[in-house]
């Protein structure tokens, strides 16, 4: 019996050593081509620390999965929210890691880490060395010196600051838990105006006529209630709304992620399904352009080189997303897999 027990113990040890872990390799080797390509931002799950960056090369048509970690031998962090590029440098805003990773846009190698944020969401660059970063919690804008990679000042704004846009010496700040779009003078860094919009402004785009379009989700978190979303056109000369189209919410998040085509005369957004709106039309169509069949569309952007629309489906938010490419007639051109919770695409043309 003792001998048997010894054998059994050996069996225990052996079986422990034998369990091989699955090796999850990228589908394609990690190649970063200097000719430019597509940055795929995968948010990852809140507090899982599994945000990833995928890189899709236009020339080789190859996808490097988890390219940040492959290049830099470390994980990126928690919730990759957005990317901004300035010259050769890329700025990865890692929301719940409360930091911005500065990378070389061609090699993806890290150059610096900017810390000191509470909940960074988006960044825009003004001139050569100054950047504005929106803070979702602890509301406001942090001003960053891009030479020293240090936060140099703070512009206080109450509320969850979201997408930003700079035009003609003015910084436009969406506040997604309010009915306000703030306008900041980039000379003085002082709030000079606020424009009342529908509840939950979250994203903005400038069209070919230099009009500003603001998308509101209608998601009233504080009030616990839900309102209609809206698409607003703003004249930036006088900063007033010239047109407002109300949009019925189709999901919890409502209308989000306003994007435009290369000519800047067609707008797209997600409201459960994907919607399309040519800027010269008077009313917003209630018919989806790409309908959701229980899809959880979470990422959207437009490739100006190929005139294709990239749409990410986060599925159950706990598995790798599916990315579909559509042409201008909404015909599916291709499909590939990206990381967990693909949140945005960034086309880097050289």
């Amino acid at each position: 019996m003792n001998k048997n027990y010894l054998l059994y113990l050996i069996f225990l040890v052996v079986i422990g050593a034998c369990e091989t872990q699955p090796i999850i390799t990228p589908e394609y080797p990690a190649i970063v081509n200097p000719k430019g390509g597509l940055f795929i931002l995968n948010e990852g799950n809140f507090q899982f620390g599994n945000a990833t960056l995928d890189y899709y090369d236009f020339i080789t048509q190859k996808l490097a999965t988890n390219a940040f970690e492959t290049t830099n031998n470390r994980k990126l962090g928690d919730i990759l929210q957005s990317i901004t590029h300035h010259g050769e440098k890329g700025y990865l805003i890692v929301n719940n890691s409360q930091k911005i990773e500065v990378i070389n846009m061609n090699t993806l190698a890290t150059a610096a880490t900017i810390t000191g944020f509470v909940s960074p969401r988006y960044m825009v660059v003004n001139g050569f060395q100054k950047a504005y970063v929106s803070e979702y919690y602890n509301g406001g804008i942090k001003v960053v010196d891009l030479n020293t990679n240090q936060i140099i000042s703070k512009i206080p704004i109450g509320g969850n600051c979201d997408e930003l846009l700079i035009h003609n010496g003015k910084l436009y700040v969406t506040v997604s838990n309010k009915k306000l779009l703030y306008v900041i003078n980039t000379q003085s860094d002082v709030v000079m105006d606020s424009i009342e919009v529908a509840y939950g402004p979250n994203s903005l785009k400038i069209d070919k006529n230099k009009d500003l379009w603001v998308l509101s989700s209608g998601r009233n978190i504080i009030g616990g209630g839900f309102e209609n979303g809206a698409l607003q056109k703003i004249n930036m000369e006088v900063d007033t709304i010239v047109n407002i189209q109300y949009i019925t919410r189709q999901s919890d998040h409502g209308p989000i992620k306003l994007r435009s085509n290369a000519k800047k005369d067609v707008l797209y957004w997600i409201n459960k399904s994907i919607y399309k709106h040519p800027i010269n039309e008077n009313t917003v169509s209630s018919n989806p352009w790409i309908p959701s069949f229980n899809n959880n569309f979470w990422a959207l952007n437009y490739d100006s080189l190929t005139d294709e629309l990239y749409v990410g489906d986060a599925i159950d938010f706990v598995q790798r997303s599916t990315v579909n490419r559509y042409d201008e007639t909404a015909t599916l051109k291709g499909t590939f897999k990206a990381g967990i919770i693909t949140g945005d695409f960034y086309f880097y043309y050289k």
Partner: protein
Amino acid sequence: MKKVLAFAGLLWLSCMQLLAQTLPADTVQYLPNFIARSQRFESFNIGAKMVRADSLVKLIAQHDNLAQLLSYNSQVFVRAYGPNQIATTSFRGAGAQHTAVLWNGVNLQNSLMGQTDFSLLPVGFIDDISVHYGGNSALYGAGAIGGAVILNNAPAFNKQSISYQIGAGSFGLMQQRLTLTFGNKKCYFKARTYYQTAKNNIEYHDYTSAENSLQKLAHAQQKSYGLMLESGFMINPKQEINLRYWLGFTDRNIPPTIGMAFNNAYQIDEFNRLGFEWKRATNKTRWIGRLAFVNDYLNYNDPTTYNSGISFSKTIVSELENTIQINLKTGLNFGINYTGNFAQSSGYIQNASRNNLASFLSLNNNWNNKFKTTANLRQDIVDGVFQPYTAGIGADYKWNQYLNFTVNANKSFRLPTLNDLYWVTGNPNLLPEKGYAQELGLIVKRTFVHAYINLQFNVFNRQINNWILWQPYGGTWIPQNLLEVWSRGIEWNTRYTYCYNKFMFSLRGDISYLLSTNQKTNLPNDATLGKQLIYIPRLTYQSWLSVTCNNTYFSINQTYTGYRFTSSDNTSFVNDYLLLNVFTGKSFQFKKVKVDAKIHINNILNNEYQVLPSRPMPMRNFLFSLGFTI
């Protein structure tokens, strides 16, 4: 003095005493006289696997919480969110909400969340801990699809003692415990209290930073205290009453996960539990009446994100059961249970309540000395609506003096939690989850002059339908009866005990391999079909080597947990880990005072590991404790 020693239950006083105490733990389910056991959970549970924590295990874990005890000592997978942070359980590949926790017969599962945080339950407050695998709602009530953890307090008639313990450990752990017991043959009063503080500033590598530096976990401090008062009165030789009150308070800071710069969130848990029990036993029949009030308060607050939630949950349980020995071969148990849940939460539009009335019936048959069977049946009526009936059957066949075959099958169910139903985005149309479980067992037992061996091999299979999952559905997060989860696996448990003079050697090896996969989806592009559920390891094993002699013990424990997937399509995972723990202790008699000293070293290999992704766990750490008992 003898009374004191007996009370303390420290059976490592002598080799033979430990052996004597260890033996029944493994043979409990085969005691012929079912009425001898105090609860129906054991006596009407034939054919299902049940393991009771032996005295050495309880002694070693005396300073720990139940989550730690279960993770080293059972095949229940404990999902720990960090040192002294929330810890939930998974039985045989089931979810955290599929574990029933019965404290002296009263279910402690939180009605809002359906799960129990085992880090809030101190081992020192419980006298008898057993783990019932396989679940069986007909016996344990709604919610017990995966399994049940049975916690009992023993009456302290004829016991008197005063005991004080102080423990200090790594990461700022300080714990003090005081126990007072005064009992005569007519009545008893017992009070237990503890106070614990810990910094939990464990070290970990921040692998998301360029420096990959070793840093200390910030904002993880914890303070907790508890009080348990017990009193009992023997009305006459046939009747006794017991009254128990349990207060628990824990205030925890929630640390940042790896990659986060900081976290300001904290959580306060407070509970009050009052239980009254009446027993009347004669030779052939035994009545038990229970009445309990359970009050849970939870406050989570994150000042940075303004995410906060406060919830109050009140539960009333009343139960009356009767066990009758109809004849030498047949025993019967029946009863009724009323459970009322009343909840208030900042996430609800209005207060929620639920009234559950249940009747249950169990039958035991001892066909001959070799063959025993059991059958359980239960019907729940919730807010006037008949729920699916639940049933269980089991059998035990004694092949020869060494070998037993067991079989058990049951149909179980779990009600949606109050959060599932009444949360702002909840779904009032949810159906209960249904579970169908079967298991087969093979048990080999053999006693030698100086040794004892027990091998148990189990195969199980379980299907859970209507599994409730919160999932985005075209961008809206709602709970739905979504999944069909198929779990199956094998378990092997080995015990070997050898006595030589004053020495007792014992070896334990437990191994489990299971698959728990999702079989259904309604989402396009979904790659989860047939894939293992996240956070459920396929392979786990534990082994123990213990030597006791006179008043000394020395134990080595090895716990291995296989990798766990972190994505539902099984494309990413957290690494497996192996922990090696060493426990040693000794007791001295110093005039009238018994002094216990202990040194425990956890994770002696200093492995850096995570149970859940990005949540670091302690590397090598120590615990020293001193106890005084008179």
